[in-house]
């Protein structure tokens, strides 16, 4: 049988040093794997692999030592548990996410829901080079947003509600940006200093804050042979529709401008950051 490595690679079969063996990368969205998927993965690792899995650096699962001739049987066995191969190569990779506001007390946005939306919209899309999305729920940045080509970080825009406030001063204490001052029972927020971490609102004993969740997006992060932190263009995006427009614009920019094998960061540097900024701002404004 002729070995079509391009097709194999698209399907997440990572060639191993050992002849005719592959480390099979699975599709995982936002780091969530169901018990049913795990059971199927276990069966495949035991029957077709070496009885173990490898956890990748980006929340993925790989099953090493899958033999070429077993590929179809493996895919079938995985499908029984709702699991399937992921992708590698020049396309949109695994969408990573922390647990976000559905589970984590610090979360400002529903990262898992957003990861699913991004996955449905972008996962596996063919591009000039790999492209990584990561979603983190708050400024604690457990998911390391700025490492990604597009990193999304949740935040809260806050407004004080005097009628509910008991003037305990906790918001001022928990604010790490020193943006909050309490004078004669009145709370003032310095919007210039506020970084949307939401600690004031989340720690408030009486919920004396109106909060607007939103997204802080960074562009051009890369953490491999070269290391660069992704950088922001728009300070705070309040709704998912606008966020997706901005993500579309970033991907379009990459698709239209990147050389084959060039990461987003270097496309931005070569073409000009102002060009990307213009595209992103235009998408932001709709």
């Amino acid at each position, binding site marked *: 049988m002729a070995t079509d490595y391009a097709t194999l690679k698209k399907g997440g079969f990572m060639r191993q040093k050992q002849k005719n063996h592959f480390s099979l990368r699975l599709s995982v969205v936002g780091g969530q794997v169901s018990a049913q998927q795990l059971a199927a993965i276990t069966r495949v690792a035991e029957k077709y692999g070496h009885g173990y899995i490898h956890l990748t650096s980006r929340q993925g699962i790989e099953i090493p030592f899958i033999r070429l001739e077993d590929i179809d049987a493996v895919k079938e066995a995985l499908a029984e548990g709702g699991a399937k191969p992921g992708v590698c190569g020049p396309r949109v990779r695994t969408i990573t996410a922390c647990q976000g506001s559905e589970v984590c*007390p610090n979360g400002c946005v529903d990262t898992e829901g957003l990861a699913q939306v991004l996955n449905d919209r972008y996962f596996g899309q063919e591009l000039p080079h790999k492209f990584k999305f990561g979603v983190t729920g708050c400024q604690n940045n457990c998911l390391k947003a700025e490492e990604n080509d597009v990193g999304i970080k949740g935040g809260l825009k806050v407004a004080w509600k005097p009628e509910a406030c*008991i003037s*305990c*001063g*906790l918001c001022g*204490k*928990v604010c790490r940006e020193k943006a909050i001052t309490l004078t004669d029972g009145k709370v003032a927020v310095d919007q210039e200093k506020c970084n949307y971490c939401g600690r004031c609102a*989340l*720690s408030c*004993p*009486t919920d004396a804050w109106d909060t607007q969740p939103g997204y802080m997006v960074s562009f051009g992060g890369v953490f491999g042979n070269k290391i660069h932190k992704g950088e922001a263009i728009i300070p705070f995006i309040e709704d998912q529709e606008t966020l997706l427009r901005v993500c579309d614009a970033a991907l379009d920019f990459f698709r239209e401008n990147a050389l084959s094998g060039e990461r987003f960061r270097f496309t931005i540097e070569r073409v000009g950051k102002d060009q990307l900024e213009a595209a992103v701002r235009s998408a932001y404004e709709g």
Partner: protein
Amino acid sequence: MAAYEIQADERVDITDVVCPVTFVKTKVALEELEDGQILQVHLNDGEPVLNVPRSVKEEGHQILKLYTNDDGTYELFIRKVGE
């Protein structure tokens, strides 16, 4: 001890323990109370004051007041809210 405007039914000192026992000790003290009764918690600056009030609130109890003492410790007044 300084006078506070709120009269507590019980008082617990959590300045002798660290996270996560700060919260556990507070939670156990709350379990001893009846609904509507008030617990006064004596707690340290730093991690306890940043986390204990929020954890208590997330458990569904009502925070009435947080006083700052002269020595940098705090008094937190909580009204127990049952299931």
